[in-house]
């Protein structure tokens, strides 16, 4: 058998291959040669063959047949063999296969070898890919080497110990004695790896953390020496002495100083020194400054130091180097919550970063800008952000639009400004806004009564320009349907009223129906809008004609609507005005019950219109879609229950505020509670029809309890089991008020831990009469499939003697029978 070709020759040969197929052929040929060479148990060339195999592995070809050969190389006496063997082990073996365990003995022997470079190889391999079993077996050897005076081995042993601890945390204790004088080393390699080891131990164990706090003075001293010492050629990087070690020490100090006043105080001076003395012309200096800033922000530093840190970040923002700007924005984003005012000072620089060319920087600048918006700067910031929205990449538009909506909602200086801002977003980024912004906007518009005429006029004008952006078109159709009368009567106060006839309006709406640009949802909106105009306009015949045409539309949804509207014209014409009248003002809290306006499912519509106290919907459009779907699309709507005063746009956010660490059952809200009893989420529907669900009779055997009693408001819970599903507990709350004044706008909200599911039904009323003269009741149904202990957090809001009251409470005293 001729000698196998050398590694470099193989590489050269393979590189001459012109196609993938040619390369594969060469590789296969060589693999075959290598395999037969392995079979011959040839010691001389094993090393060369494995090296070639490793090269081919890097190109992406399978090399597992070389695994055992690596082990043979490791066991060899020759250093060359061992070197390649260990490299092969690190590249080819992985801890999932038992083969790697065969290495353990070899490594153990090599850890005790007379040549330090062999010991080094063993430590390196163990420290890079040692499995938990191997770590357990060899931890003792590593610990021994951690105490050696040979610094070359000591530093490797330290990192190996880090790996052992990561794999088998219980072994951490055994390395503790060896750490005693690690920091008194002069050798930087050992110092660095020791700091890494200490950091790892402190991060994993609070006991270790308190134990090592006493090292703070020593660490401070080492850091000081590094800064003050003169030029040291061995460790110098652009004039800074061992930046890697400096950064590592700063990180350890951060961990030790966190939440500890004494340690934080002990490191104040050195941090200030590093922050002011570090040379910032090169990246390496900025790396140290960056780490220093992170440390200052995390420990209990005095305010002067914090301001210094934020100013450093501010300076970073002005740096030409993109990396540094990026890092500054990321850090500012982390600190904006805690040091809001300090970050505000750099607002203009941050806003300038919106114009940066780098995508990552732009994104961070955008997030930070939104975090900095407040009541004072809303107008200026919004101008910048809207300008950004106009010109940014499509990936950003959705997030930016949502951010604009949220900010506008929180800080809008006037309703007109708010509506103008939203219009601007819809016209410039209309196709990117999230789905829930349409109903939110509609709700906002409904509530701004004085702006109806202005809004519908602007929307109409926008429609004339462009009907391609669906959210805009949907909102516009809805408004025209609602306020079309204001539009044709030319009543606008805010701006010059336009002259438009009924026919022109109907032309536009019909145009939407036939346009290719309109989605089915949009078509639904415009058909309903046309229908609504039948009570506001005089050209009823035209509308009747349109509606009847769509009675034979291919689109099932449209057809259904048209047929129902036709029915309205023909058989229920007397009801039409009442049904299609103006939408009442929706409270900001809203539920997802079916719309009150159009309900042509044959059920008693008047009763739906009558139910006043559950406020109308946040999403009339969804309702319009779900006309006959009484069970409803519940999962789409993030609302808790009927009278919850949460803003719909930030429903998710508010809920999380309420619930803190009690996470909600599946999704952003407990099961929604429709205002019509017939609509219930499926799981609770089993066995139960539309009977009244609450029951004043205390459930047999489960005693009632007082869940809350404060300031005259008392809330009692009574229980009953829902048949046939014993996992459902039906709780009725009884709210009474012993004070002299009544409590109005009373809202009860509840949240349960994740393993439960919760449904709240409509309350009997939202006024709790004074002097215990009456009770407000509400039914809660809790599904407790895992039979866990029931806990609940409740939030109560009400108005009492003219002022708004809000309270949060946790209910933990549920009787065991209620959840067992």
């Amino acid at each position, binding site marked *: 058998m001729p000698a196998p070709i050398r590694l*470099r020759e193989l*590489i050269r040969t393979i*590189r001459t291959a012109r196609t993938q197929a040619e390369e594969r052929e060469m590789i296969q040929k060589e693999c075959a040669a290598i395999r037969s060479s392995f079979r011959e148990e040839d010691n001389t060339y094993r090393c060369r063959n494995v090296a070639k195999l*490793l*090269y081919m592995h*890097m190109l*992406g070809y399978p090399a597992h047949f070389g695994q055992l050969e690596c082990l043979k190389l490791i066991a060899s*006496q*020759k*250093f*060359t*063999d061992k*070197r390649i063997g260990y*490299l092969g082990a690190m*590249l080819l073996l*992985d*801890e*999932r296969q038992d083969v790697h365990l065969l290495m353990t003995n070899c490594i153990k022997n090599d850890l005790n070898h007379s*040549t*330090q*470079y062999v010991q*080094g190889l063993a*430590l*390196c391999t163990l*420290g*890079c*890919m040692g*499995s938990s079993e191997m770590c357990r077996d060899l931890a003792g050897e590593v610990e021994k080497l951690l105490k050696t005076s*040979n*610094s*070359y081995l000591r530093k490797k042993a330290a*990192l*190996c110990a880090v790996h052992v601890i990561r794999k088998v945390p219980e072994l951490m204790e055994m390395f503790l004695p060896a750490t005693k004088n690690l920091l008194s080393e002069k050798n*930087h*390699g050992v110092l*660095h*790896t020791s700091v890494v080891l200490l950091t790892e131990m402190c991060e994993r164990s609070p006991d270790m953390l308190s134990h090592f706090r006493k090292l703070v003075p020593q660490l401070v001293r080492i850091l000081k020496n590094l800064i003050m010492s003169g030029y040291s050629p*061995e*460790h110098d*990087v652009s004039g800074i002495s*061992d*930046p*890697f*070690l400096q*950064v590592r020490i700063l*990180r350890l100090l951060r961990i030790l100083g966190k939440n500890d006043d004494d340690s934080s105080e002990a490191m104040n001076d050195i941090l200030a020194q590093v922050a002011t003395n570090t040379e910032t012309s090169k*990246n390496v200096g*900025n*790396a140290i400054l*960056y*780490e220093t800033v992170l440390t200052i922000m995390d420990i209990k530093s005095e305010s002067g130091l914090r301001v210094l840190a934020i100013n450093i970040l501010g300076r970073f923002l002005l740096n030409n180097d*993109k*990396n*540094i700007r*990026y*890092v500054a924005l990321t850090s500012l984003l982390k600190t904006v919550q805690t040091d809001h005012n300090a970050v505000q000072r750099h607002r203009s620089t941050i806003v300038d970063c919106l114009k940066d*060319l*780098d995508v*990552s*920087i732009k994104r961070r600048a955008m997030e930070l800008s939104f975090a900095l918006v407040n009541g004072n700067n809303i107008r200026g910031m919004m101008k910048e952000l809207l300008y950004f929205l106009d010109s940014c990449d499509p990936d950003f538009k959705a997030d930016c639009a949502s951010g604009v909506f949220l900010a506008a909602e929180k800080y809008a200086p006037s309703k007109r400004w708010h509506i103008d801002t939203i219009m601007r977003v819809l016209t410039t980024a209309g196709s990117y806004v999230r789905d829930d912004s349409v109903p939110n906007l509609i709700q906002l518009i409904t509530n701004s009564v004085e702006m109806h005429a202005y809004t519908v006029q602007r929307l109409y004008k926008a429609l004339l320009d462009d009907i391609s952006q669906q959210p805009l078109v949907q909102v516009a159709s809805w408004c025209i349907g609602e306020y079309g009368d204001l539009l044709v009567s030319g009543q606008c106060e805010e701006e010059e009223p336009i002259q438009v006839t009924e026919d022109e309006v109907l032309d536009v709406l019909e145009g939407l129906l036939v346009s290719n640009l309109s989605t089915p949802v949009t078509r639904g909106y415009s058909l309903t809008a046309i229908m609504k105009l039948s009570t506001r306009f005089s050209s009823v015949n035209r509308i009747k004609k349109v509606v009847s045409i769509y009675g034979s539309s291919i689109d099932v949804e449209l057809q259904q609507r048209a047929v129902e509207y036709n029915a309205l014209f023909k058989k229920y014409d007397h009801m039409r005005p009442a049904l299609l009248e103006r939408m009442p003002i929706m409270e900001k809290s809203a539920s997802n019950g079916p719309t009150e306006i159009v309900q042509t499912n044959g059920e008693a519509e008047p009763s739906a219109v009558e139910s006043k106290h559950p406020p109308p919907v946040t999403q009339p459009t969804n309702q319009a879609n779900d006309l006959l779907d009484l069970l409803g699309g519940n999962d789409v709507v993030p609302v808790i229950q009927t009278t919850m005063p949460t803003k719909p746009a930030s429903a998710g956010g508010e809920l999380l505020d309420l619930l803190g660490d009690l996470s909600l059952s599946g999704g952003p809200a407990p099961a929604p509670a429709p205002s019509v009893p017939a609509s219930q989420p499926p799981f609770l529907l089993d066995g139960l029809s539309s009977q009244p669900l609450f029951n004043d009779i205390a459930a047999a055997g489960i005693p009632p309890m007082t869940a809350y009693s404060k300031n005259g408001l008392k809330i009692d819970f009574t229980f009953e089991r829902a048949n046939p599903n014993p996992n459902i507990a039906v709780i009725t709350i009884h709210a009474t008020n012993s004070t002299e004044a009544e409590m109005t706008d009373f809202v009860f909200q509840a949240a349960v831990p994740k393993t439960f599911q919760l449904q709240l039904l409509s309350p009997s009323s939202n006024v709790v009469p004074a002097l215990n003269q009456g009770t407000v009741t509400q039914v809660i149904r809790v599904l407790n499939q895992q039979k866990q202990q029931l806990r609940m957090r409740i939030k109560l809001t009400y108005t009492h003697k003219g002022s708004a009251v809000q309270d949060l409470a946790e209910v933990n005293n549920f009787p065991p029978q209620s959840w067992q």
Partner: protein
Amino acid sequence: MMRFMLLFSRQGRLRLQKWFTAISEREKKKIIREMTTMVLARPPRTCNFLRWKDLKIVYKRYASLYFCLGVEDEENELLALEIIHRYVELLDKYFGNVCELDIIFNFEKAYFILDEFLMGGEIQETSKQIVNRAIESSDMLQEDDHSEWYDVELFG
């Protein structure tokens, strides 16, 4: 800690892969594919940092080679750039004006140097001279293998 270091050419050919955690072959291939695609797609003059899953990716191009480090969230990105640079300097000192071909034809040496500089996802030695000396001594040990006797001078 660092999770991995990859070196690849501008055409996306892998020149070195160092993994500091135990993951399957398939997972490794997937990561390599994603890294090369992401990094090669970056327009020029953008910053050297990316977010990918829960990691920060720090990359830098030196001539025809991309050096790509995947680090965990607490790591200092600016220092990661220095780590990459230090590795390039070590290679440069060893090979003398290192270029991609050196790393292609001597990949095992590139690994050996890396293994003296980093270990288990952390920096092992912060002095350039000590790393160089260790490599030189190890190379000399290899030379001695070819000689009759196995007796070597140890450099501390």
